[in-house]
């Protein structure tokens, strides 16, 4: 059954930029939504004076701002600060607030390596690949004990995936191999083979299969999955739009084509950037 909630506070003309997630927040509801869905990225580093002032002046929530300021000053538990934010308006219901509090407590009690990995995973989900890679590499650098069986295998695997998403296939294949050496997972070997397939010229790739660095069975499976993905992609909105534009002849369409590919380029550049683009 649907519902309507009156928005709390104002919608900010100037958003608050959350550097960790490269996202701009415009309202109280977006703040709650962001925190609730990104608990691994919520920490004291977000609760700056700049953030509190933005709550006070741009969202016109002086009560909430004052309380957060005081709670930070008194070094109040992070969970309680989060609860205070959520309880300022009924955007999240009581069960959701309790669930978030329980999850945040679990997160805060996890080993640092696990927190880092989950942060990295969340960055990769948000297409912030460089940020994700930084977290994974830091885990490897710290060389702690395995948080659980297969932990480091997962970290290497996810490192490989983050690199692959940025078309850095050679690096990806090296990380996949590291992961496979730690835990012999057939899917990881398949990912390794796919990274070679996508990153190497056809002759070199064929030579590797001949020399047994990747089995023919794996190579066939990779081709099958690539074909499936091509077909899936062809039926997608973006590919159809591109085909429509390409099918039309003439200079007029060039601008449209550049617009489509321009969007892809911008998205890719955004995803691979690691530096902060500016805070509020």
């Amino acid at each position, binding site marked *: 059954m649907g519902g309507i909630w009156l928005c709390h506070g104002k919608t900010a003309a100037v958003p608050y930029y959350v550097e960790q997630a490269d996202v701009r*927040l*415009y309202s109280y509801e977006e703040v709650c939504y962001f925190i609730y869905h990104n608990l691994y990225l919520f920490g004291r580093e977000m609760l700056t004076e700049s953030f509190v002032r933005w709550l006070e002046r741009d969202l016109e929530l002086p009560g909430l701002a004052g309380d957060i300021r005081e709670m930070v000053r008194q070094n109040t538990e992070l969970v309680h600060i989060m609860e205070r934010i959520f309880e300022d308006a*009924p955007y999240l219901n009581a069960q959701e607030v309790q669930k978030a509090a329980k999850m945040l407590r679990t997160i805060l009690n996890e080993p640092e390596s696990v927190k880092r990995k989950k942060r990295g995973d969340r960055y990769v989900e948000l297409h912030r690949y460089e940020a994700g890679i930084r977290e994974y590499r830091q885990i490897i650098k710290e060389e702690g004990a395995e948080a659980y069986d297969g932990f480091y295998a997962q970290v290497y695997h996810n490192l490989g995936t983050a690199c692959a998403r940025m078309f850095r296939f050679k690096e990806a294949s090296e990380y996949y191999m590291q992961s496979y050496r730690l835990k012999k997972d057939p899917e990881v070997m398949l990912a390794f083979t796919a990274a070679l397939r996508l990153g190497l010229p056809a002759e070199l790739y064929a030579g590797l299969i001949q020399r047994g660095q990747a089995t023919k069975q794996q190579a066939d499976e990779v081709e099958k999955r690539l074909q499936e993905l091509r077909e899936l992609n062809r039926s997608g909105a973006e590919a159809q739009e591109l085909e429509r534009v390409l099918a039309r002849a003439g200079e007029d369409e060039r601008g449209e084509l550049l617009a489509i590919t321009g969007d892809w380029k911008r998205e890719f550049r955004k995803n691979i950037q690691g530096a902060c683009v500016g805070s509020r």
Partner: protein
Amino acid sequence: MTRLAELLRRHFGCNITEEDIRLSFVGSDGEPMTVEIPANHEKEDCAVAGACEPEQVQAFVLTAKDPESDAAAECVEKIKSAGIPDTAIYVQDYLESFVHFVVHQEPDLWTHAVVLFTLEQGVLRSYEMIMKRQTRPYLVQVFPGPVKVFDGDDGMDEAFAELAMNYFRKKLVSSVFLAGEAFEGNWMKRSLKVLCAGRRVFQGKNLFSKGACYAALSFTKEKRASGGEEVPFIYLGERNTKSFIGILTEARIGRECREVMSAGIFWRTCHVVCEVIADDAEEIALVVQSAYTGESRQEVIPIPGLPKRPKRTTRLKLTFTCKSVRCCHVLVEDAGFGEFFAPSGLSWEQDISI
């Protein structure tokens, strides 16, 4: 522009007549003071009279005999072109300014009815302000009373006294206000005795612009420096909306009705915006409540076709404007959810009777 004040002032009441411009703003004692600018000044230059930068004005209330006239609309355009923000400009009629003036005086003056007399070009008009205190905010109405056309100056005092005696018969009147320069001079002898019997009487020529200045403070919820408590009231004038509009929303427990548009707004300049979060909703339920009777009814605005998004990630912007004093137009627009979900471009509209 002429610099008329050293200090920054941000709340203004302005009465533009054929003869002059009366501009009131808050003085150093926290009460409105008025400057009179002769009509031969360029009216657009005098919109703010240099008391502060136009874009810093928080509320500029134009008061006019007929706020719906072309002349009033022209004044508003000149005020805008002086650089005062759109959202800071309000328009009201003289009676509404009168009400704002009265409620900002000491409460003893409006315990019972308050009477206003105006005298212009030989025509004496009377009005009675009644405040109903059974509700909060209080409801205020102004009813026209007897009118007397004087044929020359002879017998004005007697005629006024006669009119006042009949008008006040069986009425409890706390105070009387005489607005206009025509009441100056010593011609009121018997009439003044009648008016003053058991009431306080005030005479002045800047009542409307000062009232508009008080209105400017009220509209921006500014407290007067004197620390007087704001009196919550709704003015139900001829040109003011007569109903409250609320929206049924989810609360921590159950549902509640939250007011989004008050009664008592001048219908022409009514422009109220609010935002809601919709979760799998197909309609918005509004509650329209009569300020007179307190009776309420529901009005439903269907919003079919909202894009499917995760829970509570659709922001809807509702804009309320009036097509007439009895008809409110509601525009609902999908505003997306910040950077998470872009707006779909969908909108829905409906007229509701108020």
